[in-house]
C-alpha cells in the first residue's frame, strides 16, 4: 500500500510540475551536490486549530495549507561549454547551479478512502530563483497569502501530505524531495484530556485484563442497566477505531479488591462527600509518572439523580469517559462529555448524547491509549 501511495504521489507531483527533466538526461557535466537535501515544513491554519489540541481539527472547518520549502543542493560544472545541455544558461568557467523550489505538491488521504490521494492544487514559487519558498510571506508564491484551502468532511483520521518539486539543475539532480505528512484527526468536538503536570493522560489501564465495574444493586436496577449499557457503548466505539475493549460489560456485585488495582471501578449511589450537590463524580488515583490509575476507582451518583434511563446512561457514559482520560466538553449533542443544567431533568429531552460519539472515542483510541500523533496543526513533522 505504501508503494502504491508513493507512486500515486510521485505521479501527482510530476504531472503537476511544469517542464521536464528528460532533456538533460545526457548532460555530461559533473556535479557536486552540497547539503543534505531539501527541507520542507507544512503549516495548517484556521478553524479551531490550536497548539494544544494534539492534532485534532474540527470537521467542516476551513483550514489553509501553507508551506515552507528550502532547497539546499547545488551542482558545479567543470566543463565548458556544456555541449548538449539546453536547459540552463551556463556561465564559465565554473558555473554553479543553485537548486530552486519550483512548487510544492499538496494532497490528503481521508478516512473514507484511506489509500486514495486527494490532490490539492500545488503552491508555486512566484520568483524565478527561489531557494526558499515560504508561502506565508505575501508575494513570494502563488496562490498565497491565503494558501490552499482544506476542509475535512468526515470524522476520522486524515493524513496531509506535501512534497516539494525542485529545479533539477543542469546536472539533473532528483527533482522531488521526500514526502512529508502529518496525521490529523477530524472530530465534531475538540477533545480535552485530563493530564498530569508531566503531560501524561490520566487513565485506567488497557491491557489483557478488562476493567471490572461493580454495581451491587441487582441486574434490574436502573443504574446497573445504565452502567452496563455505557460500558458496552464505549467498548463498541473503541473497537470501531481499532482499539481493544476496555471494560467488562457485565457489572459485578462484589466490591473491588485492592489487588485489582486500577482494573476495578466501584459505582455507588451516594453524594460525593466533599461536594454533595454535584450530580456525580469520578475519582481515581494515578500512581506514577505514566498516568495509569493504580488503585480502585470510584463513581459516585447522587441518590436523587434522574431515574430516566437516557439521562442515567449519559451520566455514566461521561463518568467512564473521564476514567478513559477525557475532560468535560462544551459540544452539546456532539459529545457525551458535554453537561446538562440539572441533575434531575425529568421530562425534558436531553440535549447531550447518552452514548459516546465517534468524536469521543477517536481521541481515546488514538491519544489516551494509542500512539497517537502529538503533533500540532500549527506545523507538522515528518
Amino acid at each position, binding site marked *: 500500500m505504501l508503494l502504491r501511495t508513493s507512486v500515486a504521489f510521485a505521479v501527482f507531483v510530476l504531472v503537476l510540475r511544469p517542464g521536464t527533466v528528460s532533456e538533460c538526461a545526457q548532460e555530461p557535466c559533473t556535479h557536486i551536490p552540497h547539503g543534505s537535501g531539501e527541507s520542507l515544513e507544512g503549516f495548517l491554519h484556521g478553524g479551531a486549530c490550536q497548539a494544544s489540541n494534539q492534532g485534532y481539527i474540527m470537521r467542516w472547518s476551513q483550514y489553509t495549507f501553507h508551506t515552507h520549502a528550502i532547497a539546499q543542493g547545488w551542482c558545479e560544472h567543470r566543463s565548458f561549454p556544456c555541449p548538449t545541455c539546453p536547459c540552463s544558461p551556463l556561465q564559465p568557467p565554473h558555473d554553479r547551479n543553485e537548486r530552486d523550489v519550483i512548487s510544492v505538491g499538496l494532497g490528503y488521504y481521508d478516512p473514507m478512502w484511506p489509500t486514495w490521494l486527494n490532490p490539492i492544487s500545488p503552491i508555486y514559487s512566484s520568483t524565478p530563483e527561489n531557494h526558499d519558498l515560504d508561502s506565508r510571506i505575501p508575494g513570494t508564491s502563488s496562490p498565497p497569502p491565503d494558501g490552499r484551502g482544506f476542509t475535512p468532511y468526515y470524522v476520522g483520521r486524515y493524513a496531509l501530505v506535501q512534497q516539494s518539486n525542485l529545479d533539477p539543475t543542469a546536472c539533473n539532480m532528483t527533482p522531488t524531495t521526500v514526502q512529508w505528512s502529518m496525521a490529523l484527526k477530524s472530530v465534531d468536538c475538540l477533545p480535552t484530556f*485530563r493530564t*498530569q503536570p508531566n503531560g501524561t493522560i*490520566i487513565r485506567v489501564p488497557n491491557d489483557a485484563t478488562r476493567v471490572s465495574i461493580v454495581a*451491587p*444493586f441487582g441486574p434490574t436496577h436502573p443504574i446497573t442497566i445504565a452502567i452496563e449499557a455505557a460500558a458496552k457503548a464505549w467498548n463498541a466505539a473503541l473497537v470501531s477505531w481499532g482499539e481493544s475493549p476496555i471494560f467488562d460489560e457485565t457489572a459485578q456485585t462484589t*466490591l*473491588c479488591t*485492592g489487588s485489582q488495582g486500577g482494573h476495578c471501578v*466501584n459505582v*455507588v*449511589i*451516594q453524594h*460525593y*462527600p*466533599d*461536594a*454533595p*450537590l*454535584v*450530580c*456525580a*463524580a*469520578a*475519582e*481515581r*488515583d*494515578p*500512581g*506514577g509518572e505514566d498516568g495509569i490509575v493504580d*488503585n*480502585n476507582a*470510584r463513581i459516585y451518583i447522587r441518590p436523587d439523580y434522574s431515574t430516566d434511563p437516557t439521562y442515567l446512561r449519559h*451520566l455514566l457514559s*461521561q*463518568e467512564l469517559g*473521564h476514567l478513559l482520560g477525557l*475532560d*468535560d466538553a*462544551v459540544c452539546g449533542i456532539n459529545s457525551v462529555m458535554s*453537561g*446538562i*443544567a*440539572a*441533575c434531575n431533568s425529568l421530562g425534558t429531552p436531553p440535549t447531550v448524547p447518552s452514548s459516546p460519539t465517534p468524536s469521543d472515542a477517536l481521541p481515546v483510541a488514538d491519544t489516551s491509549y494509542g500512539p497517537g500523533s502529538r503533533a500540532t496543526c500549527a506545523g507538522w513533522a515528518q
Partner: protein
Amino acid sequence: MGTMTIHRRYMTTALLICVAATLDAQRPSLKEVARAEGGTAVRVVDLYVPAMEIPALTAAAELVVHARVAQQRSVLNKDETAVLTEYTLQPLRVPLARSAVSSAQPGEQQIIVRRPGGTLVVEGLTLKTDTNVYPETEAALKTGEEAVFFLVRDQEGGFYHPVAGPFAIFRVSAGKAKALTAFVAKRRADSPVPLTDFLATVEKLGAAGLKR
C-alpha cells in the same frame, strides 16, 4: 403487599448504606496513598456539576453573599481522603438568607466555604486533590478578592458548599460579576454583569421565591 414493598425498600436502603460504608473504607486516606507512593499522593476527581443559571442557583441556595476573601488555605477533609480549599469570607452584602444565618450580615461573623481541590504538605507528605472544575491556576480566589457565592450549609460541619461548584461562584472585578472560570463562561454562555444589577436580580428572585 404494601408492607412487603416497604420492607424491600428498607432492605435496599440498608444495603446501600452498607455498600457506601464499605466503599468509604475502600477509599484510602491520602496519607496512606502518599506513604505507599513514596511521599506524594494525587487524587483526581472529575465532578459532574449542573450548569445552573441564576434563577436555579437562587432557588437552590440557602445563602447568597457578596463577600471579600479574608483568608484562603488548604485543609484535609474529615477522613483525610481529600484536600479542600477553604475560604474565610468577610460578608459585604447578603442579597438572600433563607435560614438562620444572622452571622452572614455585613461586618459580622465570617463565613467558611469549602470546595474540593488543593495541595497540602503535612508530616513530610505532599497531598493533592486535582479537581477538573477548579483548575488551580484559574479558579483560586486570592485573599482580598471579592466574589458572590451561592451557598448551602454542610449538614455536619460549620461551613458552606457552593450549590453548583464553580457555577455558583462569581468573581467580582471592576464592578462586574464574572464567571469563575473560562469553562463556566463558555458552558453557560456568561458575560460580565454590573454587580449592582446582578445583586438586585438575586434579591428579586429570592423575594419572589420566599413569597411562594
